[in-house]
């Protein structure tokens, strides 16, 4: 009889502490200067929510809440993956438009294939000339 009361106190206190930690994570998700800070905070919020659901399941002796926690874990992982992929795609498109605004306005494939092909070639030629000059200097010395 007393053990159920003690477990009630334990679960209630644990849920209160977890909710306080969740508020701290929410503050970091709002204040985070970069997008990675926000996604990290959202990921940790999902973890803390799963902990709360599992504790609640044992407190209320409702077994189906564990299934809810399992599904929530999968959806939380999927949310992180989708957010990362979507933001990375948006950023890549933005950087490509910023680097070659003419190509973005024209929208033709010839410009896109032409300009990135020029960059590695120029880089390789500069590197070769550097190596050649270094070899020449070595030969002279």
């Amino acid at each position, binding site marked *: 009889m007393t053990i159920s009361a003690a477990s009630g106190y*334990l679960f209630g206190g644990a849920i209160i502490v977890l909710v306080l930690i969740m508020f701290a994570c929410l503050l970091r998700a709002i204040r985070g200067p970069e997008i990675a800070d926000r996604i990290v905070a959202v990921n940790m919020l999902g973890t803390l929510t799963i902990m709360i659901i599992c504790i609640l399941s044992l407190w209320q002796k409702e077994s189906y809440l564990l299934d809810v926690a399992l599904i929530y874990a999968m959806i939380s992982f999927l949310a992180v993956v989708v957010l990362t992929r979507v933001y990375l795609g948006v950023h890549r498109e933005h950087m490509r438009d910023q680097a070659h605004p003419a190509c973005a306005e024209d929208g033709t494939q010839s410009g896109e294939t032409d300009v990135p092909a020029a960059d590695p070639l120029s880089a390789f030629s500069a590197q070769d000339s550097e190596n050649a000059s270094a070899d020449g200097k070595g030969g002279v010395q």
Partner: protein
Amino acid sequence: MEWVRFIIGSLCILCGLVIALIAAFGLFRFRYAMNRMHAAAMTDTLGILMVLLGLIVLRGFCFDSLKLGLIILFFWFASPVSSHLLAGMEVEISDRLKDNCEIEETERKGGST
């Protein structure tokens, strides 16, 4: 015997709560997203292991403890993957990466060889 099991389970749950508190502290103490990622990943692995292990000890051996173990297993598979994706995104989009991580020298070495 019941009280011994209760005390062991509650100690595990309290240990998990302390780990989650440390992770929340590290989320505000560190200054860069990579360091914050390290602090937050501690909750995803050790924190949830301790809390759910305490719940398994309190519940006893039955079908619910199998579900709790499955949640732990899923988190141990999913957390490194999400951390990897986040770190890759941070490396690609960040402007402050060279101020916080020492990557410039290795990049130059890779370019010359």
